[in-house]
């Protein structure tokens, strides 16, 4: 319940930064927050109050948290970081031509 609220707040905040801010770096930050909100929701939702999903030597296994969503989230985090890096590189490249990172001042981004 609480986690759903946090997810919605963070997702909307990321979307706000993505759409309303004109600074391109801010847009990438918004994208990061948006992705992080999804990852956070997945982890919080899949927490059933069990242990970390690692067996301990010499102990019987007790109740574990679901390992599959955690593995998928790990993949998602790595993919998100590499796409953000590519995006930032392109922003550096665009800045070499325009000397600005304001979206409104760059005509080509608006048509």
């Amino acid at each position: 319940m609480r986690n759903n609220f946090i997810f919605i707040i963070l997702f909307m905040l990321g979307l706000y930064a993505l759409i309303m801010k004109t600074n391109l770096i801010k847009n990438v930050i918004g994208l990061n927050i948006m992705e992080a909100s999804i990852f956070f929701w997945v982890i919080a939702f899949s927490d059933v109050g069990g242990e970390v999903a690692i067996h301990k030597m010499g102990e019987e296994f007790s109740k574990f948290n679901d390992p599959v969503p955690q593995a998928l989230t790990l993949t998602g985090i790595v993919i998100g970081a590499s796409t953000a890096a590519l995006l930032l590189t392109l922003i550096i490249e665009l800045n070499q031509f325009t000397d600005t990172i304001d979206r409104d001042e760059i005509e080509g981004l608006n048509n």
Partner: protein
Amino acid sequence: MMTATVVLENLLLIFLVLCAVMSVRFEEELISIIFLSTFSIVLTALYLLHRAADVALAEAVIGAGLSTAIFMSAISQIRHGDSD
């Protein structure tokens, strides 16, 4: 014991939202990035509270470490027309 965890979690959640709001609100990019890094660290703590150790390690290393370094190197390369 149980209530202590809940209180800690609530505090961390409030701090998480606060960091995200700050990161979006501030106009200066450098401050935004530092708040984003703090956001990742708080998120790491929350992942640990939710007992997802691998994801917490990945978020600490990638979100708070590498992403911040890449963001920093990006803003260090960016020229603003009026400054030079």
